[in-house]
């Protein structure tokens, strides 16, 4: 009853979703044969300042959005999501999968004029990716050495087979190169270059005024002919989402990436001809809303209770009324945007069925007590976005209808991670799982048992399944792509059956950009990419 009334209000608020749909389907309007125009300043919304800006030691979109323009990776993804060389021109894996040879681009120089060579690759891989970079240390766990027989060749040697497809899909995010000559002495983490990045990319770092802006200018010596087009990029630090939307409208901002505006502002700007609001260009940044179960709670360790909870929540209703067209029904840990791994039929699923939920709870021995309550749980929502907040309230209301009382405990970022992943002080937790193009990069750690306590976004549920562990390990070193895909299909089926973590909603980040921008959103991780071909029409 309460739910229905709320829903009507929400629906009125999101009446504009039809307009959004139009943009999703046709994000790039007026794309006639215009000749690219040089010049212009591009103002970018920067919502969350980071502690440092070196993508070789921190994998996060907050870093790529700036330094992805300044530093470059070995490999990036093209418009079809296929790996394409950037600093690497070509690559080859040995038949046993234990060595991967990269041929590097010639004639590339760092912004300080020094040449880029294989020594930079060797240094970055061994000192940064393997030791410091989040997810990089997992990806490169079995990397033993990088040989550099000549300045244009880097040979990665692995202790165990490294699937070439995995490496190439991980490297766009986890393969940024830093200059050895700037980092070889002293503590890498404390190096001042981390806040004044020097790279080989199309834009050169100019100035970083904390709390205000970052500026980068065109690199006149860039190796791609005729690129870049823009004179300057300015990232403006704006933490307040409503203020950012106002600045877009006032013409002071040209681009707000990664769903940086509120859901209602996105819907409003989508109707404005001056802007394009779309999920295009973010396919490589899919995220899934989660529901994480703590197995240390007796009730939740019972599979019938977990399934009952999934059946009790009307996910399509939530998506339609709260998230609009930017989200869809999720089917498991691998999102449908991952065409190389999405298994298609992700069985089993848990459609909304309140009666079935009640029956499962009865069967598990949790009958309704006084006032219809069966038991109560503490739910910790992550503070990353308004969708998580809405979702946690929706869970609370849905579960109360089957007799489970939910208390929502809100924390800020540090508090959430500490309580859930450090102290396991939760019954239910909800947040985002970010998918990074290959399940081995950041997905399987949510399910693989034996993760050290306190490591965020890993299996901290107290759940253990030898079969799933084995599937995960096999898939991580399987070099035959067909067999690998089959193993991940198996993995999805296993975890969908056991349901240690439920991933019921699939979302793609939303981009808001001015309509006169050209060549934007043309790769699956465009917000993070180098923008060498971006230009502004008159």
């Amino acid at each position, binding site marked *: 009853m309460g739910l229905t009334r709320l829903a009507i209000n929400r629906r009125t608020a999101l009446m504009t979703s039809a307009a959004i749909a139009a943009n999703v389907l046709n994000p790039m309007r007026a794309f006639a044969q215009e000749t690219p125009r040089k010049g212009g*300043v591009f103002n970018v919304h920067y919502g*969350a*300042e*980071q*502690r*440092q800006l070196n993508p070789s030691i*921190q*994998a*996060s979109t*907050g870093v790529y959005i700036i330094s992805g323009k300044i530093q470059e990776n070995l490999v990036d993804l093209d418009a079809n999501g296929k790996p394409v060389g950037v600093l690497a021109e070509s690559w080859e894996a040995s038949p046993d999968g234990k060595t991967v040879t990269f041929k590097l681009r010639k004639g590339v120089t760092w912004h300080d004029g020094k040449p880029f060579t294989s020594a930079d690759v060797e240094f970055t891989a061994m000192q940064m990716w393997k030791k*410091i970079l*989040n*997810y990089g*240390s*997992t990806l490169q766990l079995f990397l033993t050495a990088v040989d550099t027989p000549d300045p244009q060749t880097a040979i990665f040697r692995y202790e165990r087979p490294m699937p070439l497809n995995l490496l190439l899909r991980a490297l766009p995010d986890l393969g940024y190169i830093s200059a050895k000559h700037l980092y070889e002495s002293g503590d890498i*983490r*404390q190096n001042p270059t*981390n*806040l004044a990045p020097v790279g080989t990319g199309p834009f050169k770092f100019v100035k970083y*005024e*904390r*709390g*205000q*802006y970052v*500026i980068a200018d065109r690199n006149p010596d860039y190796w791609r002919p005729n690129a870049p087009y823009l004179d300057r990029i*300015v990232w*403006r*630090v*704006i*933490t*307040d989402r*409503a*203020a950012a939307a*106002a*600045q877009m*409208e*006032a013409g*002071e901002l040209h681009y707000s990436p990664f769903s940086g505006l509120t859901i209602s502002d996105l819907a409003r700007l989508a109707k404005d001809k001056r802007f394009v609001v779309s999920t295009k260009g973010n396919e490589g940044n899919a995220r899934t809303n989660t529901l994480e179960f703590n197995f240390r709670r007796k009730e939740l360790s019972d599979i019938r209770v977990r399934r009952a909870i999934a059946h009790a929540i009307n996910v399509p209703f939530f998506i339609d009324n709260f998230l609009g067209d930017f989200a869809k029904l999720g089917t498991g840990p691998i999102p449908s945007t991952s065409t190389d791994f999405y298994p298609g039929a992700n069985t089993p699923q848990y459609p909304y069925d309140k009666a079935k939920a009640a029956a499962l709870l009865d069967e598990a021995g949790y009958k309704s007590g006084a006032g219809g309550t069966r038991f109560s749980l503490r739910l910790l929502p992550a503070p990353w976005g308004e969708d998580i907040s809405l979702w946690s309230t929706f869970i609370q209301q849905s579960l109360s209808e089957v007799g489970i009382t939910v208390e929502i405990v809100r*924390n*800020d*970022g*540090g*508090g*959430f*991670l*500490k*309580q859930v992943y*450090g*102290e396991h002080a939760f019954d239910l937790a909800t947040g985002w799982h*970010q998918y990074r193009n290959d399940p081995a990069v*950041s997905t399987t750690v949510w399910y693989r048992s034996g993760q*050290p*306590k*306190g*490591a*965020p*976004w*890993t299996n901290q549920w107290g759940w253990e399944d030898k079969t799933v562990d084995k599937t995960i390990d096999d898939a991580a070193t399987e070099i035959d792509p067909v067999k690998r895909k089959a193993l991940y299909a198996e993995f999805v089926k296993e975890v969908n059956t056991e349901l240690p973590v439920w991933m019921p909603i699939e979302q793609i980040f939303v981009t808001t950009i001015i309509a006169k921008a050209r060549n934007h959103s043309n790769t699956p991780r465009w917000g993070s990419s180098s923008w060498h071909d971006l230009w502004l029409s008159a």
Partner: protein
Amino acid sequence: MRILRLAGRRLAASIPTLALILIGVFLLLQFAPGDTVDAMMAQMGGGDAATARELRKFYGLDLSIPAQLGNYLWRLIRLDLGFSSIYGKPVASVILERLPPTILLMTASLSFAFFFGIVFGVIAARGVNKWPDTVISILGLIFYATPSFWFGLMAIVVFSIYLQWLPAGGFEDIGALQTGIWRTLDIARHLVLPTLTLGLIFLAIYLRIMRASMLEVLNLDYVRTARAKGLDETRVVIRHVLRNALLPMVTLIGLQAGTMLGGSVVVESVFSLPGLGRLAYESVVQRDLNTLLGIVFVSALLVITVNFAVDLIYARLDPRIAAEG
């Protein structure tokens, strides 16, 4: 000489207060779950446990809480505010960078609120229960009741988006990078909306106080005497009433310097100003204890200074106060 003694006594009295505030904030923040390394992990989007352990050691977070507090206080005695873990710079220089926008904003808002508070308060008191009083009182009530973030956003919608008169945010124009007088004018232009937003709520308070205090003084015997002497009304108000009616206003400034720092968090966020308020908010979220304590320290100093200035003004306005001190 008497004033110097007053100053010395004031400062001596504020040192224990300052110490208590710092220890209190330090202990309070220990109750927040998670530390700066957790916040760092949240920002990075994950990392392994070994890295976390190493970072905790680097930031001295592996020590016991009394040891951490002891270290902090010992550094403070040597006037060292420590090292900021989010900025990777000494806290003192981080705060120094963020201080000018906040001080500008506070001074501008306070002056604006104070000046117009007096003007409107006097007008309202002179026309008590007539239409100017009614209009001013209703406006005051509206300003007082409106949340400042909403007011700020509406100001942006009207003045930046529709009229395009003023910038929607930021401290200065980044594209132009001006110098000298042009830079000053540019910053002033950027500060108009934030000043109004932060100042209006205080304006509402000041005009009410001013109105009440004027009404009270206007009824005193010496005012009647002044009128009886045949002085014209303007002279009575300016020379005789205003000076005495100002006393409660000055008291309020001292009290509100601290409140204003709190209010600036919201205004600085809405207008993307790189001030102390936003820095404080970020250091709480990032669990950057050193920076937060540094800000508390500096703000406390600021409030103490303002209160001291208020005392001086007091003595000037009413010589009896200085005589008693």
